[in-house]
């Protein structure tokens, strides 16, 4: 593939710095939510756990290290403007950025080849980094979302196609069952992402996209927004607390994304993000100046 190697190098340097910073610093909205929850949790093990979490965030920042050892399998959600001038450079720059960040952050080696069952040792593997593409008509910007999902918070992930008469209550039941079993081990308080659509793969993908929305944001559809609040309130009544040790709250929030469904199916997907929700979003202009959307005021 022919591409501008100079521009690709510049872009990969920027994206590598972006990944390295994200590995050690939680986004502004997650930090704010955690400190709000720490103020509410004043009984049992919860205050001690929140203290260790706070100390960990401070140490990661001070020592410039990944805050959690599980830096996830590299996965990008790209929204590329159709007028962005370097479309050919995006994929090689992302791959190069992962290699550099693996060495520099450093990231854990997390790409294990399926069937051949060996760790590639540099986070590059078959179809990894996984890149999810979206084209944005008329835009000249490149938006990259990165989310370090560890194994622990990926284990509760699921998708299932319900029959419509099972209703939205059926979706809630599956979410609640998963959160009181797998969710307990997934480093709560989690952010819960739910996708609702006509088939399993669309619902699953939307559940992950829901986790890319800020904590505390709402779905623009008023009914969906209410479902987010109702499920969040219901989950909080269970009181998983930090680390599953019990407490007054369970989750950081619930985000729902939907796509129109088939008349005969009501598919749901669930993804969860641990409290150390290392989500990062950058918006890059054609001259490679950028806005670090999730980490305001940070210069890379």
């Amino acid at each position, binding site marked *: 593939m022919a591409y501008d190697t100079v521009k690709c190098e510049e872009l990969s340097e920027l994206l590598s710095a972006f990944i390295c910073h994200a590995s050690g610093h939680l986004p502004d909205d997650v930090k704010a939510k955690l400190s709000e929850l720490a103020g509410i949790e004043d009984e049992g093990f919860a205050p001690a756990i929140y203290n260790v979490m706070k100390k960990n965030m401070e140490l990661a920042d001070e020592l410039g*290290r990944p805050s959690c*050892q599980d830096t996830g399998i590299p996965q990008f959600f790209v929204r590329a403007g159709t007028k962005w001038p370097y479309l050919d450079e995006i994929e090689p720059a992302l791959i190069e950025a992962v290699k550099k960040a693996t060495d520099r952050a450093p990231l854990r080696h997390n790409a294990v080849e399926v069937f051949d069952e060996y760790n590639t*040792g540099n986070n590059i593997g078959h179809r990894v980094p996984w890149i999810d593409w979206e084209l944005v008509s008329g835009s000249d910007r490149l938006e990259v979302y990165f989310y370090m999902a560890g194994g622990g918070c990926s*284990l509760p992930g699921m998708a299932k196609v319900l029959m419509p008469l099972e*209703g939205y*209550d059926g979706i809630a039941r599956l979410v609640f069952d998963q959160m009181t079993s797998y969710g*307990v*081990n997934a480093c709560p308080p989690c952010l819960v992402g739910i996708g609702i659509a006509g088939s399993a793969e669309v619902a699953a993908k939307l559940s992950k996209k829901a986790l890319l929305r800020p904590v505390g944001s709402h779905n623009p559809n008023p009914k969906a927004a209410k479902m987010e609040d109702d499920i969040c309130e219901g*989950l909080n009544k269970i009181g998983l607390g930090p680390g599953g040790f019990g407490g007054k709250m369970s989750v950081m929030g619930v985000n729902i994304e939907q796509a129109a469904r088939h008349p005969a199916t009501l598919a749901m997907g669930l993804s969860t993000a641990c409290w150390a929700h290392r989500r990062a979003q950058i918006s890059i202009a054609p001259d490679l100046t950028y806005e670090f959307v999730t980490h305001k005021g940070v210069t890379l």
Partner: protein
Amino acid sequence: MSDFHTFEFTTPLTDEDIKKVHIGDVIYLTGDVVTGRDDVHHRVVKDNREVPVDLAGKAIFHAGPIMKKISDDKFKVVSVGPTTSMRMESAEAEFLAKTGVKIIIGKGGMGPKTTQGCIDNCAVHTIFPGGCAVVAAEEVVDVEGVEWADLGMPEAMWKLKVKGFGPLIVSIDSYGGNLIEDNKVLFNQRKEKALEELKGKLDFLH
């Protein structure tokens, strides 16, 4: 944590040490901690391979660290938090019997097989707060070496020397107590009530 006891232990641990602790107690550990997770349990229990490290009286840490090579045979821990212990549930009881490990360190709970394994082998399962990997790394004073490095960075057995390693909250004791399973019973009761209260609120179908 004021209702519970805090212990400072040094490896090798004895049955007498383990018998002192109960679920909810907190341990700070000094001495030998070795990492081992899915692949190590698979090799030891399913493949019946000889364990390359003497683990008797020591701690097994369910963790896949980020390590940095600082010279030909020397490594430094960058970040090392606990991983989900439940993944090792099918193999842990047998692992305890084969190795003589006294403390399992991980996150989240483990199930009935491990609980029985802790009774039979006088051992405990403890939880290091999840996601707090830099705090844990700063409590590691030395990396003695690595075994089964062919498994790759997260799955290899890293031999760590730790000092005041914790807080390790005891979630399974040697008397059959299981803190997280007890919590789950409570969580499931509250779940049914919460779902009952949701009824009627999500009736979007026509």
